[in-house]
């Protein structure tokens, strides 16, 4: 069959897979277990969560069992909820400040310094930084909780023992804790990226008289741009859904000063019993994550095309 024969009378291409000969009906049977697992353990729970987000279900209370579909009532409530919008703002500060900026910059700095450092220094610093990353999140939360509260080591270090940084600057402290924990990941990813930068390119720029910073910004960073973008995408998705660290350190407080979206979702669902509304916030969080992912992937598209 030629390509011309595949064009129908209306000009619509009759789709035919290039590997059509390999696809047999019997193979569908082999895919069924995996499909069943995906449907049962992923699609059904997500679908059910989407449904619950449009109901008035309560964790406890008269609507715990006798709940009903309420259409867009939760969405409308969310649109008029000042705490939700404040929570969105806090989430963006948390993700951008402690995730995208701090972790990427610190991770890149460590990776670059590691390139020039003695192997022993590189190994030692790398091990210490990675230790923060491999610690369970709850341990990191308690370390920073002790470190930053009144009488903690942070106050001792800067000579203000009575300062209670966790209460007076809670968002800054949780951002620092998150950056401290996540920097190792960036360092590892970007170190791998830097190892793939061809030395000739750097040497050529050096022969042209380019300074270190010019070479960094004009040669190295453009070459590792796909790695940087992937790193930022992973950091964003990891940070935007972070609950344990913030909840264990502040429970979203004082007031709502650190109530990022995952924490606010928990407060609504488990402390105010508004399970339906909490699920709607979860869906909003999912949509924000999806939008950010699309933005990153669009940014990556030229590189992906080039690499094809």
């Amino acid at each position, binding site marked *: 069959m030629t390509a011309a024969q595949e064009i129908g009378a209306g000009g619509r291409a009759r789709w035919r897979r290039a590997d059509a000969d390999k696809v047999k009906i019997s193979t569908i049977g082999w895919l069924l277990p995996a499909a069943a697992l995906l449907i049962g353990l992923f699609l059904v729970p997500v679908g059910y969560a989407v449904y619950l987000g449009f109901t008035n279900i309560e964790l406890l*209370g*008269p609507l*715990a069992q006798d709940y009903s579909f309420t259409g867009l009532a939760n969405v409308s409530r969310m649109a008029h*909820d000042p705490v939700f919008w404040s929570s969105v703002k806090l989430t963006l500060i948390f993700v951008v400040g402690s995730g995208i900026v701090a972790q990427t910059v610190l991770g890149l700095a460590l990776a670059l310094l590691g390139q020039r450092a003695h192997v022993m220094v590189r190994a030692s610093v790398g091990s210490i930084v990675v230790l923060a990353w491999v610690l369970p999140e709850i341990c990191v939360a308690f370390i920073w909780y002790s470190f930053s509260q009144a009488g903690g080591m942070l106050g001792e270090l800067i000579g203000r023992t009575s300062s209670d940084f966790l209460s007076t600057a809670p968002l800054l402290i949780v951002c620092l804790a998150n950056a401290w924990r996540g920097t190792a990941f960036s360092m590892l990813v970007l170190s791998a990226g830097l190892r793939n930068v061809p030395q000739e390119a750097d040497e050529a720029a050096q022969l042209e008289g380019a300074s270190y910073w010019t070479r960094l910004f004009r040669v190295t960073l453009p070459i590792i741009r796909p790695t940087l973008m992937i790193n930022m995408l992973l950091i964003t998705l990891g940070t935007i859904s972070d609950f344990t660290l913030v909840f*264990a350190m502040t429970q979203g407080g*004082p*007031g709502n000063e650190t109530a990022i979206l995952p924490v606010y979702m928990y407060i609504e669902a488990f*402390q105010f019993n508004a399970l339906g509304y909490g699920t709607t916030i979860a869906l909003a969080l999912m949509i924000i994550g999806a939008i950010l992912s699309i933005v990153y992937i669009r940014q990556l598209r030229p590189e992906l095309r080039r690499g094809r």
Partner: protein
Amino acid sequence: MTARMPKIARPRRRLTLAVALLLPTLLAACSGSSGSSPGATGTRTLTVLFSNNYVFNSDQLANQWWNGIARQWARLYPHVKLDLLGTGGTDIDLMNKAAILFRSPSTTPDVIQLPTTYVGEFSSSNYLLPLNKFVSGPNPPSFWTGMPKGVQAMSTIGGQVYAVNAGNNDSGILYNKIMLRKAGIPLPWHPTNWQDILKVAAAVKKANPGVYPLWLAAGVAAGPTNVLQGIGNLIDGSVTPVMFDTKTNKWVVDSPGLRAALQFYRSMFKEGLGSPTSQLFRTDAVGQPPLLMKQGKLAIAIGSNWYPTVWVDPKSAAPWAAAKDDVGVAPVPTQNGQAPGGASTIGGWAFAIARSSPNAAMAWNFIKLAEQPQNQLNTALWSGFVPPDLSVGQEAPFVNYAPPFQAAFNDYSKYGVPLPNNGNFTVYARALNTVTGDFAQNPNMSVSQALTIMANLITQQLGAGSVETLK
């Protein structure tokens, strides 16, 4: 061709074998098991969900009490296995776990231990079995008839008894005598109104630099417990002691008493008399006052009757033998010293039976066992509770425990006012705790602003028609 067949067939045989092995496992995992359903051996199981490290003063005491119950149960009902589902964390953690377990009858325990403040929420969810048939009739159990009407009412909603109280906490003022003496306060100190408390706290602050003058719970970290052991005592002692108006079924978000209570918080924090947010906002804030008093860091606490039971217990987190001499006790005064002269919220823990339990009679047997005088007494001594049964509360081992505090707190229970047992109390508590926490952070906020925040929080959750103003 035939020679290759075994090679093709082998994976299929393996797959068939794997499916044969996995399928029963998956089915068993999916099927779950009902609370007191008969097991494979014909032995029935009764499941009890409880807090294993929040109710008792130490984990060791919790184990001691529950192991004792398990032994007694095995003697009384050898053919019914008692499955004790101890849960860690705070009361809030226990309630969240319970709320999730109760969503399916297959995971619902037969008996649940719960704070009385949650009985309304669980009963309004239709999760609890009314116990009227067990507690009424010609021969009601003595532990029930021995409870004051007010204690019975804590778990009675619309005439239905949903839980049986196992022990209560009331409140009072505990103060460090040495610090007050240093400030020139005549002892024993007996504050007659709220201004007295602030005045003495200010004097203590001046005479004892570096000490936290006054502990009054604030913020959301401890959930409804912060109302029970904090602002609830002020509201109940105010000129309008109403949180939930049972006549209109509305929550009070503005009243002279509520304004005065919030003004107390504002003054306390504005004058630097309150405890720091680093202590108040801790997730384990509820347990801090007895520890801070023992360490000499806290002068006065508006606190709970269980503090002294921690001090007398050498196995507790804060044993303090000198407390009986160094710490004084007084009732929380009313706002202006008006009758009855003292105020105290009262709330505790109770046992309830799940509506879906297939064996309610056996579950009731468990409650009867837990409420036996010796078990009730041990609960009271090891948890710092006032026993619900008055006759147990009059027994010498209880009255003479942690002198002079136990007798004093027993006396203050006459002022006891239960917290509202409405299903939405946690929402109201959250709003109250939010504004007390806001004052701790920003004492320049006005009382009117705090009331607006409160009203908004409640109406956002429960609707505009759920709140009212009392004149």
